[in-house]
């Protein structure tokens, strides 16, 4: 049923942006009013796959992507966020995915477990510029990976995206375990280098630190 609502909404978007209030978001919100559990389920089915696909652009790991999205939904239910979020649920979910993925990526890049910059999407407004940066960030990640030497990229993708073990990759690529490790860590080093120099990370780190201080009351 919600699928139908979805396709109707799409047609409306095609026709005119003015009809933006009317889409499946509204339908799902209605369900939440009477049955939050059903609402969560509906929301999950509607967005899970797309959100995982968005997350993987940043984190390059199917497992991590699914974990990130799964946790966001769990929290959405456990903390009854649906009662409080004033922006659309869709916006909230995408923002959360982006923030969490960003943190995950940052952790990978910095090779550090410190989560001082851990934070989460809010119902507050994001700066427009920041909204765009997230898109540009995953594009940059993609570019860096594309530019890796073929062997290096292959090993990295097998390890990260497919979650294969070093010896599996070694067998497939007909090289030693050590060589695979070296290839993967070279890929990570490139990623680190490419992103760390990036003003984006620096800027965000600054913003985050600011938020942290602001909220640590």
């Amino acid at each position, binding site marked *: 049923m919600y699928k139908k609502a979805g396709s109707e909404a799409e047609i409306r978007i095609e026709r005119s942006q003015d009809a933006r209030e009317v889409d499946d978001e509204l339908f799902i919100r209605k369900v939440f009013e009477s049955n939050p559990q059903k609402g969560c389920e509906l929301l999950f089915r509607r967005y899970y796959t797309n959100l995982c696909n968005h997350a993987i652009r940043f984190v390059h790991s199917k497992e991590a992507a699914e974990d990130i999205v799964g946790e966001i939904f769990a929290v959405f239910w456990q903390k009854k966020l649906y009662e409080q979020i004033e922006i659309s649920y869709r916006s909230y979910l995408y923002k959360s995915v982006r923030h969490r993925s960003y943190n995950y990526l940052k952790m990978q890049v910095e090779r550090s477990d410190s*989560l*001082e910059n851990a934070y989460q999407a809010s119902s507050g407004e994001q700066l427009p510029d920041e909204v765009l940066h997230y898109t540009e960030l995953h594009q940059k990640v993609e570019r860096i990976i594309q530019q890796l030497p073929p062997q290096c990229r292959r090993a990295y993708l097998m390890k990260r995206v497919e979650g294969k073990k070093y010896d599996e990759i070694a067998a497939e690529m007909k090289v030693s375990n050590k060589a695979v490790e070296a290839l993967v860590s070279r890929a990570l080093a490139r990623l680190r280098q490419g992103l760390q120099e990036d003003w984006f990370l620096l800027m965000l780190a600054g913003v985050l630190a600011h938020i942290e201080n602001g909220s640590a009351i």
Partner: protein
Amino acid sequence: MNRSIDKNTLFEFFDGKTTSIQRKMIEEWLQQPGNGDLYYRYLDEWESRHAQFVPDEAAALERYRSVMADNREVAVVAVAEKIPFWRAWLGRSFFRLAGIAACLLVISFRIWKDDILYRQYENPFGKTTLYTLTDGTKVVLNANSRLRVPRFGFDEDTRRVSLEGEAEFNVAHTPGSSRFVVEMDDGYFIEVLGTKFVALSRDKSKRVYLTEGKVKMVLPEGRQLYMKPGHLFEATENRPGTLSVPEKPQQYVAWKAHQFYFDNTPLSEVVRQMEDRFGIDIRILDPALEGKSLGGIYEAQSPDDLLQVLAELYHVEISQNKNRIELRSGSNL
């Protein structure tokens, strides 16, 4: 420059094909109310058309259902995990909301404040648990004790936790040499760099026993004391804090091994310690018993273990009256 941005432009942006001038336009477009939501709607649509993998949605939905079927409480796990990001979401809105929105948020924040800002470790009666904090610090929490650890900022320059009850801390040294501070009620603080100590803060009594390293005690009056290994700090409501070097320090760490350490300890104190650890109500009904004292190390996982010892040593008659355990002198005394 207020031209409306259409879906194609955004799709091209998601594809990474827009020029910097177009990007500027999108940025301006985003500033108009409602367009933020629209941005994510188009992003969602774009994702639908650019799928990279197909997650096992059915299995994930099953997991989600079981999450929802569980109660809403988030279980505290024995080994501390990384701070879940989602807990911080309110913290962020804190930053930018203004006016009424902020007020509403502040109210909800107030209600949930503790839950959002702190992770709480709590041990019921009769249970001691080892927790590892995100900075590597190991904490053995005694029964009937609570430890609160901030969810954010914990790894920054000062690691600050608060303790109610008793715990042994084995504080990890961090690369940045950040301080570790244990807050106890009534204005007592322990400041350390990397060290091992046992702290107790129950009712009005405070006790800190240092096994390794160096700590600074900050007392309510602002007085500061530096402790060395083997030093014991004790304070009660009526007695200001004093430092001493106990001859038999075992009693301060015995609880970790589910033990009680008594050294000529009056029975009334034995009973009080049992009440603290096991959350039971024990009454000594016979004045003759009050004067008795007990020595030695006793292992007790449950109150019965120790009560049995008492029964044998002192011919105590133990009876249960509703929720209260009553001790009387045995008939042959």
